[in-house]
């Protein structure tokens, strides 16, 4: 039980996906122009990630190591097709808002990264806890970034006006440049607070987590080719 909680809760803070593990940046940047888009995308990822972790963990002893990546991709792609059909049936406006980023969940590093790093080595219950925790952490981050950008860029939160009269929204924030800059600034704030915490403990300040393409593990390479 303890172990289960540990695997679940690490996704919520210590390994918070887009900020601590810098993975799956495309949806983080693309669909966070409003808070509700971020939330919707996050829920889709929770669904795919939890189920793909469960399925991969169940068949982990049957898959030959050489073709495991292909198997992981096939499993997550089937789940993404299911999500697409479900969204078309029950959340069509959201499906249209998110556009090609729904099918692109397949190539989201978080799915393959967790499959490779966790689900393929652990029993089903732990894998589900890991997937659920990581997925919820991802949802949280996306919703937070989405709220930030929506409030600053459009003066609204979940489509409701939250700013005072005469507030001039920064159109920049809901466009592409705002996405990059706000994520970069948020990452640096995370690093800064981490360093303050370390200094209190008497440790030296460190550079934040670096982003390596190979860290997603989706390609069978464990390290950055550079």
């Amino acid at each position, binding site marked *: 039980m303890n172990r289960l909680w540990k695997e679940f809760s690490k996704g919520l803070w210590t390994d918070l996906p887009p900020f601590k593990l810098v993975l799956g940046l495309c949806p983080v940047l693309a669909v966070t122009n409003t808070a509700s888009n971020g939330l919707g995308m996050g829920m889709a990822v929770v669904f795919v990630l939890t189920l793909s972790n469960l399925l991969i963990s169940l068949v982990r002893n049957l898959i030959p190591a050489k073709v495991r990546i292909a198997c992981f991709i096939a499993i997550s792609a089937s789940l993404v*097709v299911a999500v697409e059909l479900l969204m078309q049936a029950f959340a069509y406006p959201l499906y249209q808002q998110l556009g090609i980023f729904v099918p692109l969940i397949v190539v989201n590093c978080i799915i393959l990264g967790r499959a490779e790093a966790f689900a393929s080595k652990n029993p089903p219950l732990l894998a589900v806890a890991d997937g659920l925790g990581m997925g919820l952490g991802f949802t949280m981050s996306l919703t937070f970034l989405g709220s930030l950008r929506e409030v600053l860029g459009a003066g609204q939160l979940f489509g409701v006006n939250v700013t005072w009269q005469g507030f001039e929204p920064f159109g920049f924030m809901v466009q592409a440049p705002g996405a990059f*800059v706000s*994520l970069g600034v948020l*990452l640096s704030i995370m690093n800064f607070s981490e360093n303050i915490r370390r200094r209190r403990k008497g440790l030296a*300040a460190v550079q934040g987590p670096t982003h390596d393409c190979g860290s997603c593990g989706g390609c069978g390479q464990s390290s950055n080719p550079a």
Partner: protein
Amino acid sequence: MQEYFLLFMGAMFVNNIVLAQYLGNCPFIGTSKDTGVAIGMGGAVVFVAVMAAGITWLVQAYILAPFGLAYLQTLAFILVIAALVQFVEMFLKKMVPPLYKSLGIFLPLITTNCAVMGIALICQREEFGLLKTVLFAFASGLGFMIALVLLAGIRERLAVRRLPIAMRGTPIGLVMAGLMSLAFFAFKGMI
């Protein structure tokens, strides 16, 4: 002719795949620390994107659509791309060793590059013909390469500057990408 030219320039600059469409950000941030690496990665993306877009177009037109399997598009496309990357890797290793040497290490990274799959999906959503699909993929791949090489140049220079420790690495890379994206906004008025 003019239509194709506009499509080409539009895909390369105005709707730049990374800076305006948010695709392929993982390799964009991950492999932009060194110009040489960036050129290799960019070249591999151009190569694979063109082939993947062409082949997925054929798969969609001659296999999925006639049999009413369009809802399996996502599954079919990712499997085609994964298989294609494997074949390209084996082919280059055997037949064109010099090219393999320069692109080889980047090929496995490309399966999960959402730019490649994104380009194929955009072509389907825009209902391009085969020629337009290939042209669009080529232009988008080049756009990716330009953005990646430019960012690598900027980050090489930043690497020797003194920065606040919290900003070093990924955060400053993202902020720089944001400034580049702002600069690419200027192309919006072009077409």
